[in-house]
């Protein structure tokens, strides 16, 4: 794709349909900090087919947001490759990124922090199109269409972000991400800051848009219950590595990694009461320091099944079914 022939409002050339929206191989990200080098992401593989959703799940500090930054060019990659619709993006300059920006967009967690409070919605939405050379009037017209697409009135174009609730702002964030008809949207905890009644609205909107726009999502979340409906594939991260990955059905029917099982079991349930709490299996301890991860399997310090081999040999991701990978010496 070269800049001269680039029409930002045309459907992007995504190559043959079998070209994945995202193909990540052996991605590693090291971050230099005052406390030393942090290996935030350690050799992960991810693949998202066109128009599908991969949920990347894990707790704080597992590296999931660093993955998002790495593949959108917001963080330098140490090793490995990432292809978005066939375009290698890990070693691009800002200028080289520019024509590809239309392919991949982001939706952020905090709808209060991700919209400029001093700009009107019309200007926030049309800005990305204007930067990509769309004439002003056309950009405004498309902004109005986008607002209706995400369930807001056209009159919102003249309003400022503070006039909207959290859920409505997240809709604006989604409209902005859709402006250039991306093939991949990286959604970083898009509903974590929202009330449960509004979470449903936003997840439903994202599912609906996926059907009509044929856009793929990398959906990053700490909460498996949120991604249960939207995901086609699920990958679970712990301390920089993927410990289990598979289709939504496989993971939900039979999670194989003790950590995945604990993540699902830990979500408070409407069907349990206080008397059940002390009997429930739970994960003791904290996430180990990512600066000094345990030898072997990083999860062994909190794992009820851990044995000597777990500290000696790190389990590799291995096939555990037709569409299922797990990294555990004692997987279920």
């Amino acid at each position, binding site marked *: 794709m070269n800049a001269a022939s680039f029409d930002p409002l045309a459907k992007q050339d995504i190559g043959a349909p079998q070209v994945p929206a995202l193909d990540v191989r052996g991605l590693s990200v090291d971050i230099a900090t005052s406390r030393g080098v942090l290996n935030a992401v350690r050799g992960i593989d991810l693949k998202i087919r066109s128009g599908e959703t991969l949920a990347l799940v894990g707790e704080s500090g597992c590296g999931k947001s660093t993955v998002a930054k790495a593949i959108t060019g917001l963080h330098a990659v140490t090793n490995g490759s990432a292809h978005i619709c066939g375009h290698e993006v890990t070693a691009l300059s800002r200028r080289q990124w520019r024509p590809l920006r239309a392919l991949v967009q982001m939706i952020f967690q905090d709808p209060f922090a991700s919209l400029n409070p001093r700009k009107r919605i019309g200007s926030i939405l049309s800005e990305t199109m204007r930067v990509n050379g769309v004439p002003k009037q056309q950009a405004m017209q498309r902004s109005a269409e986008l607002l209706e697409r995400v369930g807001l009135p056209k009159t919102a174009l003249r309003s400022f972000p503070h006039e909207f609730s959290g859920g409505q702002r997240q809709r604006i964030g989604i409209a902005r991400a859709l402006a250039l008809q991306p093939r991949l949207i990286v959604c970083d905890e898009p509903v974590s800051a929202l009330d449960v*009644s509004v979470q449903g609205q936003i997840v439903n909107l994202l599912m609906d848009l996926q059907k009509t726009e044929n856009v793929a999502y990398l959906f990053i979340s700490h909460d498996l219950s949120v991604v249960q409906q939207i995901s086609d594939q699920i990958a679970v991260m712990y301390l920089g590595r993927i410990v289990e990955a598979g289709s939504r059905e496989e993971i939900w029917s039979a999670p194989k990694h003790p950590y995945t099982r604990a993540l699902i079991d830990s979500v408070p349930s409407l069907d349990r*009461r206080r008397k059940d709490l002390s009997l429930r299996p739970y994960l003791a301890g904290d996430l180990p320091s990512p600066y000094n991860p345990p030898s072997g399997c990083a999860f062994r310090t909190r794992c009820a099944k851990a044995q000597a081999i777990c500290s000696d040999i790190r389990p590799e991701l291995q096939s555990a079914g037709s569409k299922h990978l797990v990294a555990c010496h004692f997987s279920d």
Partner: protein
Amino acid sequence: MAQTEDMQALLDIRNLTVNLLRSGAPVDVLQDVSFSIQAGRVVAVVGESGCGKSITASSIVGLLPPSMQIASGQISFDGEDLVGASERRLRQLRAKSMAMVFQDPMTSLNPLMTIGRQLQEAAIMAFGCSTEKADEIALSMLQKVGIPDAVSRLQEYPHSLSGGMRQRVMIAMALCRKPKLLIADEPTTALDVTIQLQILRLLADLQAELSLTILIITHNLGVVAELADDVVVMYAGKVVESGGVDEILKTPKHPYTRALLAATPRFAIGQPPERIAFKEIKGTVPELGKRGPGCRFEARCPASEPGCAASAPETVRITASHIVACRSREMLQ
């Protein structure tokens, strides 16, 4: 919520109305909020952002922001009126009888003081005891909340602890006072799910061991289910329904409670959830100052009737403990 109405409640809130003072007419942030807490019970106040659940907690402990004031109603705690209480008296009560745990333990701990000093200070404030005695209390409470290697932790500063550990320290600091009432405002919201479960277990264990009375403020119905005996559901500054945990979660009567339950994802291992849309609640909560005289859920309510918008519904008693504010007879069946 009184199972036995004649029993003296530890905390009793009657018709509490709190106003936000601003240019023009004051607007109510809470309107006619009533519920009570019996000693030894865990009561959850649940609702979404802006429903007034945290303002309710702030009203109890006398820590309303300067822009808000109690317009009417009573709060009685252990037989004492708190609405008319002096600032000095409220301070005494906060130091000893009513302890609070907040959502974000990092901003509630002093970053410049060791954990040990902060716990010691809490014990001295509560009991006026010697520093030696206070240190003894501090250490035993730190051990009680399950902090490994408690002796050396006393010397550390909050920044060197993880989020879950900080929340344990906050709970230890609350327990140092042997409070009559522990108010926990979203105590697990900032934590990861596996850590959240640890803290819920800790609260349940402590409650059983010490017969603690706990008021927990949360938006999470799962947390309510796992911890509470009694539940108060709030919407837009009003109590819409209250009752025992099974009454609220299994036989909810208010359309809002029902919608909230339907919107809460349910799942279990072994049952891949269907790939269907979430049940959402259409629309948004009415803004402060734009709340009409009628039922505040009316605009979003699937069961709204003529008349719902015009006047507020009477509260209806379903059982001795189950109360609902809805005029739809169909709902109350």
